[in-house]
């Protein structure tokens, strides 16, 4: 039991299980899945489908954070990708054809690639701190997206395009399958090759890894490109789900959710060791929280407060200092001063 509770994924998994259980108690049919018209339906599927863009972005973010970086620009990339693809479809001579949709997807992914190269250039070649380097695109990116859409919400009607975010394949929503594929790709690339170790090495000690002959610059470049491409695909999902590009609101604050998912999942913002599975669990926790609020009948206005409290609780549970305090309290239930500190935080 002790070794289990020390596993880095223990707290996130317990938190997720507790949330799911809470839902189950209040709504007995919560876990049930049903087939309808060859499609799977159910709350769990909804959570996965609604969480797909966040998971996708959080996967990219995990690798960036593992190199001691951070990518604040993903929300802006989501907006740009959606704006570029929808603007292309809306302006094309055949707005309904699958070829147009495929070209639009290609445009969005290439846009993501280019923006990732830009971030990577600033961070690795110029040597700008990641938080500021990506702040530039975060600030300017939404403006660029509005420039592309002309400040309007561009709506499109293209069935192929719509299926990215709202379609089904093999009874499952396509967005879930895309996310699973990206997860598998990232997991295989970083865990079955040396790439994962190299990323961790750069995050743990950039100087040492450089002295060991590692081309840290390229590694950093790769993670920013990966993050931006993930964000572009997420942008496709979000815009295709509503068949429109909203430059103002698409992916708003998604960078915050993604970073939270990574941290809740157990990857330290200080870089180094990372866990992709943990990130997925973290993203599920965030998405389940939203669902829980509805299940419990809490007014939706309270969602954010609830989220803030859960985030801070999970972070406190993971913080080594808080854990030490906890074990010390258990060992010697004496010092009143420490308890006072703990109570202050619990408010």
């Amino acid at each position: 039991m002790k070794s289990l509770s020390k596993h880095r994924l223990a707290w996130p998994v317990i938190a997720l299980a507790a949330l799911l259980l809470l839902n189950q108690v209040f709504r007995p049919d919560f876990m049930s899945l049903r087939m309808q018209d060859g499609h799977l339906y159910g709350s769990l599927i909804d959570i996965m489908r609604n969480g797909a863009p966040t998971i996708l972005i959080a996967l990219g973010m995990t690798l960036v954070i593992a190199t001691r970086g951070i990518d604040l620009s993903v929300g802006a990339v989501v907006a740009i990708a959606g704006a570029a693809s929808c603007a292309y479809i809306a302006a094309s001579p055949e707005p309904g054809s699958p070829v147009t949709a495929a070209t639009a997807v290609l445009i969005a992914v290439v846009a993501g690639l280019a923006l990732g190269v830009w971030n990577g250039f600033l961070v690795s070649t110029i040597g700008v701190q990641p938080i500021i380097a990506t702040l530039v695109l975060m600030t300017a990116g939404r403006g660029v997206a509005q420039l592309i859409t002309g400040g309007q919400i561009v709506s499109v009607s293209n069935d192929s395009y719509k299926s990215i975010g709202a379609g089904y394949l093999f009874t499952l929503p396509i967005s879930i399958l895309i996310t699973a594929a990206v997860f598998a790709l990232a997991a295989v690339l970083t865990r079955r090759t040396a790439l994962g170790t190299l990323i961790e090495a750069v995050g743990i000690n950039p100087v040492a890894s450089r002295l060991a002959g590692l081309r840290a610059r390229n590694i950093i470049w790769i993670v920013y490109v990966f993050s931006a491409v993930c964000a572009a695909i997420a942008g496709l999902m979000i815009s295709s789900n509503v068949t429109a590009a909203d430059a103002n609101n698409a992916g708003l604050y998604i960078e915050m959710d993604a970073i939270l998912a990574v941290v809740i999942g157990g990857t330290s913002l200080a870089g180094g060791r990372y866990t992709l599975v943990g990130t997925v669990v973290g993203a599920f926790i965030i998405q389940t929280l939203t669902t829980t609020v509805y299940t419990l009948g809490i007014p939706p206005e309270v969602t954010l407060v609830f989220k803030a409290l859960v985030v801070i609780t999970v972070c406190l549970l993971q913080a080594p200092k808080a854990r030490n305090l906890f074990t010390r309290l258990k060992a010697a239930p004496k010092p009143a001063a420490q308890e006072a500190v703990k109570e202050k935080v619990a408010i």
Partner: protein
Amino acid sequence: MSPLSTLTPLTVKKPSPARSRLRGGARYAPTLATVGLFIAMFAVGAGMYPSFLSGQVFLNLFIDNTFLIVLAVGMTFVILTGGIDLSVGAVVALSMMVSATLLQQGWNAGAVIVLVLLIGGGLGLLMGLIIQYFDIQPFIVTLAGMFLARGLCYVISLDSIPVTEGFFTGMAQAQIPLPGDLFVSPGVLLALGIVAAAFFVLHHTRFGRTVYAIGGNEHSAMLMGLPVKATKVLVYALSGLCSAIAGILFSFYSLSGYSLAAQGMELDAIAAVVIGGTLLTGGTGYVLGSVVGVLVLGIVQTFIAYDGTLSSWWTKIVIGGLLLVFILLQRLFARKAG
């Protein structure tokens, strides 16, 4: 300069603090560049639009941005210690909501202001305590703080609440005449007073020197026996307090409380501080630079308002571009100094 980097041509990140800080004369360079940019932008504006070159246009930059100036002051303290505060925009909105609601219920304006300041300062203090005593990154803690404050706004009300109370409307309409047919709002004087106080605290008190020392090298500061822990907590409390003041100033300006107000204002504040020449790694920067940073953001908006044909999204693109230029300038100065 770390001896290692001379051995290695493949430089990626310079973790040595000496490298990331600016030295000697170069220390003032980014701030001076900002001042130069501001003057140049004003000159270009004056060349393009005859009515641009007036004292009132200049003073309006202050009147329209009092809250951002105060936010940037608080943010400067936090960033100087190497931290960040993402909660400021949400705390501004919360302060507006609390004051609008309580004023509507007939509370006394003075009591409301005191309460709002206590809430803002208290929230900042709480975040500072968590950051310091549980060793969680400022980014995450203040992000949770942002969710909490924004969430509390939603809990209070989803609608916009007008402020009709006498003191607030009085402050909104009051004009303090200056020689030459010019005027400023009382909020401007308050904001400038806070800037002056911050300048004094940063450069003439132990607390201020400790702030710079922490940003330079936290470990050294600790070994020197400086009160690192208390200072780091206080810096966040200060930023929370500044956010609350900014919220009240914004209430004077907009005479309403709305839960979606001040969205993204934390980004404006951070941008102003960076454009003003403060390094996000901490240790280098000036509060007066941040004020000039706010004025630069303000003049960009004035430009777009004067032009009339440019759409509002150009503001974002230009601010992003300016951020980029200043970041690159800082790197350049840092290289030269190193």
